[in-house]
């Protein structure tokens, strides 16, 4: 007979797991399935190697970043809600503005809330699946460790969403929790819900672009859920955001190090031919930016959205930093300017702020993306090289919303579909580009050493040396 597992020990939490029989029972059935999922869909190999990981053991300052070597299957996936600092917390927006936040799900909103949580939850394991083969071509041990860190935390985010489903959505919630493990990225029978999460992350350049651009979509989705009137969801997402910030940092510094390496090569060899010296040239990098930025913009949905408007009115999902926006937080008669595509022209149009919630979030996102791009450009400038990485126009290469029918160049000029076909491979990675990047992907496992196309990071993890053995092979 198997020994009873003490879940309160195994699963660090601040949700009173040890005294919640219902939740324990649900997790007892789900946990082995999760472990099975992690073994088959999580990082390929390296499950028995110790990785220098950060684990959250509590939500206070001391507890959220606990470093040490852990085998990934032994990672302590915890369930945490951010601490509530507000006494008498009130709903900030929508129809229920001013009412007390909900600790239980109102029946009326059970379905939409479940849908929001499931859609968010589905992206978490999806990215782990998308990245599962990357370790085999890790450019260094630090990078491999960063990949694994991102992976275990995305899996923890799955736990966070599963907790909400199990604690608040009864049998339906338990079924949804199981289905989160049954769907799988790219599976023709049971694909992940959002299209972008069924694409493979084939190389490390894509991985960094993904963590910079696509995880940033996650940041904005989570941030608008932290505004939710359903308090457990708000607090769960609040805590997830701290980890998400780290993932974007991995992306930003990853790309920065590739840029650094390209600049170093250009200066060292006085050449523009970065590829000859095993680096990734800046024009290729620009193409990847174009691709990942435009695909990630699509994740925000259509410019005009009834669903988003309903979620807002119902108090389920707010805007980014609702508190800082100066308006009535109900938006019945508020205008908002959105870009539209009509008669082959890109124009601005004033529409109801309520139905343009998605677009507003996308605006915030674009602004945020630009900040990191500015930092990349500063690196290039500091290296004395004349090149500027630019975010493409929002209408460029879109599949969703008003621009999905438009052919638009990165600078925002509207072109014909013939021109698009002719030019698109100047703007988006071509097969050749992919093959070139793929050819660079060779695993480097000697501590302190790095692949030819990426510079070393400035500092190690948690003040460890650069040549620390972050993954013990």
């Amino acid at each position: 007979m198997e020994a009873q597992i003490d879940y309160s020990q195994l699963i660090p939490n601040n949700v009173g797991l040890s005294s919640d029989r219902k939740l324990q029972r649900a997790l007892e059935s789900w946990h082995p399935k999760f472990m099975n999922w992690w073994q088959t869909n999580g990082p390929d190999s390296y499950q028995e190697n110790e990785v220098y990981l950060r684990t959250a053991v509590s939500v206070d300052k001391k507890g959220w970043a606990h470093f040490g070597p852990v085998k990934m299957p032994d990672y302590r996936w915890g369930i945490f809600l951010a601490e509530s600092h507000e006494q008498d917390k009130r709903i900030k927006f929508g129809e229920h503005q001013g009412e007390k936040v909900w600790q239980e799900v109102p029946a009326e909103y059970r379905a939409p809330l479940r849908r929001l949580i499931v859609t968010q939850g589905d992206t978490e394991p999806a990215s782990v699946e998308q990245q599962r083969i990357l370790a085999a071509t890790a450019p260094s041990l630090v990078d491999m460790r960063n990949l694994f860190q991102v992976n275990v935390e995305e899996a923890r985010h799955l736990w966070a969403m599963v907790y909400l489903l199990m604690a608040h959505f009864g049998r339906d919630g338990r079924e949804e929790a199981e289905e989160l493990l049954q769907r799988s990225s790219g599976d023709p029978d049971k694909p992940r819900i959002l299209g972008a999460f069924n694409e493979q992350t084939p190389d490390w350049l894509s991985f960094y672009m993904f963590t910079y651009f696509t995880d940033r979509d996650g940041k904005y989705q989570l941030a608008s859920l932290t505004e939710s009137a359903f308090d457990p969801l708000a607090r769960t997402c609040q805590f997830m955001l701290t980890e998400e910030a780290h993932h974007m940092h991995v992306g930003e510094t990853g790309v920065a190090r590739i840029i650094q390496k390209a600049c170093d090569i250009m200066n060292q060899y006085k050449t523009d031919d970065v590829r000859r010296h095993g680096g990734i040239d800046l024009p290729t990098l620009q193409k990847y930016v174009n691709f990942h930025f435009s695909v990630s913009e699509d994740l925000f949905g259509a410019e005009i959205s009834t669903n988003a408007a309903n979620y807002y009115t119902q108090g389920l999902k707010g805007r980014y930093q609702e508190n800082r926006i100066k308006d009535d937080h109900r938006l019945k008669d508020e205008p908002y300017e959105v870009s539209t595509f009509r008669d082959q022209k890109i124009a601005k149009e004033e529409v109801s702020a309520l139905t343009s919630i998605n677009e507003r979030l996308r605006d915030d996102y674009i602004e945020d993306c630009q900040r990191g791009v500015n930092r990349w450009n500063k690196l290039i400038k500091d290296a004395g090289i004349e090149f500027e990485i630019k975010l493409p126009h929002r209408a460029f290469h879109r599949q969703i919303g008003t621009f999905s029918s438009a052919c638009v160049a990165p600078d925002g000029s509207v072109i014909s579909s013939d021109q698009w076909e002719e030019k698109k491979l100047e703007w988006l990675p071509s097969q050749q580009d992919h093959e070139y990047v793929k050819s660079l992907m060779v695993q480097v496992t000697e501590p302190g050493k790095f692949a030819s196309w990426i510079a070393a990071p400035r500092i190690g993890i948690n003040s460890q040396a650069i040549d620390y053995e972050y993954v013990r092979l």
Partner: protein
Amino acid sequence: MPASQDIQKRKNHYIASFGINFLTHPKQYKHWAIKIEEDIAWLGLNVSESDTLGDGYQLKLNSYDLGVDIELNDAIQRIRFEHPSIRCVIIHSLNERVFCAGANIKMLGYSNHAHKVNFCKFTNETRNAIENATKNSSQTYLCAIQGSCAGGGYELALACDEIYLADDGSSAVSLPELPLLAVLPGTGGLTRLVDKRLVRKDRADFFCTTEEGIKGKRALEWGLVDRIIPASSFAEQVMSRAKEVAAGKNPESAAVGIQFTPLNRSFKENSIDYSHLSITIDRTLSSATFTLHSNHTDLPHDLAGIMSQGSDFWPLLIARELEDAILHMRFNEDQIGTWIFKTSGESTDVLKAESLLKNHESAPVIKEIVLYLERTLKRIDVSARSLIAAIEPGSCFCGILAELALACDQSYMLLGQFDEDERPEAFITLTDFNFGSLRMVNELTRLESRFYGQKELLTAVEESTLNRLDPKTAEELGLVTFTPDDIDWEDELRIAIESRAVFSPDALSGMEANLRFVGPETIESKIFSRLSAWQNWIFQRPNAVGEDGALSLYGSGERPKFQKGRV
């Protein structure tokens, strides 16, 4: 612009720009694609977002407006006539993410009540035609669902004989009308759920109050679908099932079809002319007179002749013209509340045409023509118009055309002749077609309905088959309401029409529908009566269409406020 103003503006625009053409052709389709593979047809829905019938909305997520359904109706009709060797039709979506999101909600929100009801009626008739083809034409409809299938999308599926759902963790079927819009499914969803698919009441209740619907195993267990199929083998398994279904059918595949040629019609301000049907409109009396003409000149002699005449063969032509006229008058002439039916020509020509149908009744195309006539006459029964027959000398209310008089709420037959008119006294002739081939939605013939529960009267009528029934006999047999002579004729008819014009049109529609459909309910009759009663009521209620109603606010992001009292 504030959401409410925005809605009002688009609403007005939408109504103003309305004018609907029911004729189309596969080459003109914007939303459907027909693909024929031997005895199987794939009917693919791929709604073109911006090709809408009205303004102010886009047909997102394969949602439909009347324009989409006009094409579907045309496609079903053409598959029957032009491809009679088809044994199985698969309705599916060409959009990867969604099967069909149902009727477009914004369109419903912007359209006036009459359009909403007319729209639902037409879509119901189209779905009934799907079931009718499955039952009578050996063309079984299957529905293959991948992606979400909501509201009218699932109701379309319910009209099919079998429903397959992709088991991919996200494809689901739903009827979200009540929780989302505070209305009911408008195309028979509730009735077919319990009456046709025999879904248990409690489960149906849960299903219809669950916005996101039900997927996978549970959908199968509850009988909402017939099979769940993994996504990777979906198309393949659907195809192999379609082949089984087709193989189980009587081949009849030698059957050659009839191509539908475009109808000739010309619109003037107060008249419409088809080849064998003319309509004149009297706007002061809010009435329209339909006159159907028999065909004297070019009836064929045999099946080969019929086939070579094709869609110009009189019984088929008259069905097409009458159908188009009914739809036009319903949608585009809603102020015209009374339809008067007249005929002109020789009864012998009608009899000749009928005997051609009778002699070749086993030929698939002939079967189709009769079924088409039946469906067209049903459209008259369920039209919200006062129907009056005027039977005069020179008319030919015989067999098929006599059904027009029998469909009417009241009928007037001239006793004797008009002054200075040589034509003989009018007569009615009943044929086999009045005793079983042309049934109403309650599955009774119009004569069975007329003499419901009075067998002896029906028997007496039956015994007079093929007789020339003069006005006196017709009145005695109970076939007409009044038989005024030429002195009273004009006045009586005028009063009948004028009085219809002064009564409340709503009360008239309700009364007429109550009186027209006697006897037991069928799925078909239930669908129409419940649409007329419940849905019409709910569609009018503040909780749906009031300023704070769910349908009015849909899409604005504002939340409906319901009046809580139960009525």
